[in-house]
């Protein structure tokens, strides 16, 4: 789960990393009052979970409270890289002397975390990393030891950061570990003209799998933005909205991903990814089907199940159950194989719904669904 900037800064603040004073609002009028409280002059920043806000015009200075209101009005509702701006953050401006970059990221290959740091921070860090890789230090961190002061000094020295950043590097590691984050990034980390080290902007990605030990993560900001995705998440389904016309349901992430590819290979576009998981019950199948059928873009649905632990008769029962609550208005192609496949096929044969047809292979089912969706 990616956090908004204002959520990331709250975590930094809670762990003793200095951040500028700031407030968040979705109302231009309130922005004016907040700007007054922050001293008049503020930076207005769009809160969206994507990079490149500054270049898109989502970060602007406002000289006084009236300008803050006007600027908030302009930024709220903007679309940045497909993300609607619903809130803005107003922050006290900081007089910057120099900018740095620091982050901790997961190194999948080594199976540990990596500190990445550079004395050349700011919006162009990607270009710096590409053009001058030697300007970006990459230091592996032993998970058992963590980032001690000595380790932080090693990272700061490797990147050419000033000694005052050592404390921030230690605290940022604590954010990563104690908040169960997969990524923490401060860019830019700045030295102000008064010599203070301040985190001006940050990004944090939390590990959804660790939700059980962080009760306070629950809340509207943690939910997906797409309404169908929110509906599916509420039912415990793994669903991703795509922009095609064939609805795809299957069991297991790998098989569903593969089914999307096979549909695409047949000349149609998948409308979604929906994984009912392992050992799915009839209820789960019915929930999945109802999510997909609420998507008006879907013109045909493909159900591709290879039953390992999942029993195909339960899947078939789920499809039949769904017909009681959801009116099937678009064709459904079903391929069942593996555990209890014969029983599952018999259940669907017995129901004999005019819009449901069965296929014997994955490729055949995809071809048929693609054809139905593109000629319907």
């Amino acid at each position, binding site marked *: 789960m990616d956090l908004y900037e204002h959520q990331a800064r709250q975590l930094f603040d809670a762990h003793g990393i200095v951040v500028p004073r700031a407030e968040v609002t979705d109302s231009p009028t309130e922005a004016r009052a907040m700007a007054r409280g922050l001293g008049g002059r503020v930076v207005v920043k769009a809160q969206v979970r994507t990079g490149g806000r500054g270049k898109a015009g989502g970060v602007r200075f406002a000289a006084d409270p009236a300008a803050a209101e006007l600027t908030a009005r302009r930024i709220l509702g903007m679309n940045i890289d497909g993300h609607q701006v619903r809130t803005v953050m107003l922050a006290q401006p900081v007089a910057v002397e120099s900018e740095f970059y620091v982050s901790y990221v997961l190194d999948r290959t080594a199976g540990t975390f990596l500190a990445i740091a550079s004395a050349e921070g700011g919006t162009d860090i990607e270009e710096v990393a590409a053009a001058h890789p030697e300007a970006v230090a990459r230091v592996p961190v032993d998970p*058992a030891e963590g980032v001690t002061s000595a380790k932080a000094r090693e990272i700061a020295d490797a990147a050419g950061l000033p000694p005052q950043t050592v404390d921030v590097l230690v605290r940022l590691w604590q954010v990563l*570990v104690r908040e169960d984050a*997969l990524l923490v990034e401060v860019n830019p980390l700045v030295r102000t003209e008064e010599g203070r080290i301040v985190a001006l902007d940050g990004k944090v990605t939390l590990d959804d799998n660790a939700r059980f030990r962080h009760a306070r993560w629950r809340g509207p900001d943690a939910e997906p933005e797409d309404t169908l995705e929110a509906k599916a998440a509420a039912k415990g389904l793994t669903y991703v909205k795509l922009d095609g016309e064939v609805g795809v349901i299957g069991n297991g992430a*790998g098989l569903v991903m*593969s089914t*999307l590819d096979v549909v*695409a290979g047949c000349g149609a576009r998948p409308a979604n*990814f929906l994984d009912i998981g392992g050992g799915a019950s009839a209820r789960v199948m019915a929930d999945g089907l109802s999510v997909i059928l609420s998507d008006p873009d879907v013109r045909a649905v493909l159900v591709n199940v*290879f039953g*390992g632990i999942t029993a195909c008769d339960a899947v078939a029962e789920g499809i039949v159950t769904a017909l009681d609550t959801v009116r099937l208005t678009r064709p459904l192609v079903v391929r069942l194989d593996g555990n209890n496949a014969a029983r599952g096929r018999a259940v669907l044969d017995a129901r004999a719904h005019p819009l449901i047809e069965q296929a014997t292979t994955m490729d055949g089912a995809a071809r048929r669904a693609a054809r139905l969706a593109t000629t319907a």
Partner: protein
Amino acid sequence: MAIYLTEKSKILVQGMTGAEGMRHTRRMLAAGTDVVGGVNPRKAGRTVDVDGRALPVFGTVREGIDATGADVTVVFVPPAFAGAAVMEAADAGIGLAVVITEGVPIHDAVAFHAHARSRGTRVIGPNCPGLITPGRSNAGIIPADITKPGRIGLVSKSGTLTYQLMHELRDVGFSTCVGIGGDPVVGTTHIDCLTAFQDDPDTELIVLIGEIGGDAEERAAAHIRDHVTKPVVAYIAGFTAPEGRTMGHAGAIVSGSSGTARAKKEALEAAGVRVGQTPTETAGLVLAHLEGGMRTAIV
């Protein structure tokens, strides 16, 4: 021979007394696996009847090893406790820990992998279906009845694609199928399995199944080019996955140009691996390669 498992493998099940643990213990036993007991500190000393077999429950992995000579553990412990379970198994000196548990926090996985490595314990998973040597032993949740013993070695990131390929190639059969798991950090990698299959006299051809995310397949390609002389056929899932979205598996996410299915396919093909467009086509490539050998087998 096969890799990582033999018919002599003695298996403990951590979390055996839970619903999932019990269900799969039953399936493992039915597949001929030598399950020697379970581990649950709160139920130590009891005996559980599984289809007429009395299985002891031990308080710790150490006690289980001392009493039975177990050398493999299969972990069904819930995510919050899976990390401690693997650490305990590694401390007890188990040779192989197969972690089925899905949803293990990354920080826990990073910690137990480092710990297991330092103790010389091989970990498969987490979030994996385990591994099977058909007809001999089954450590995990892979259905045993969809294929038979044979000469193909299979290594896969995805559970269901493992089943799909096992089903497609059921007439040829497998030496060992290993589901390494779809999480960003896993204990046993494609390269580990490629190395083991290359050294396994029972394996004639290797099937590699990958998916988007990370660069494990690209590294496997380089390894195949330099070290694998047996034929390898591959399949990669996720060509249509959009950038920046997690597709089911925690590790299945494309970031920028890295981790795409196309990059993985190209790297494998450049290393001389034949890559199928669909699971069925992939199985077809395997069959075409084995055709000569198949005829001999039938005669």
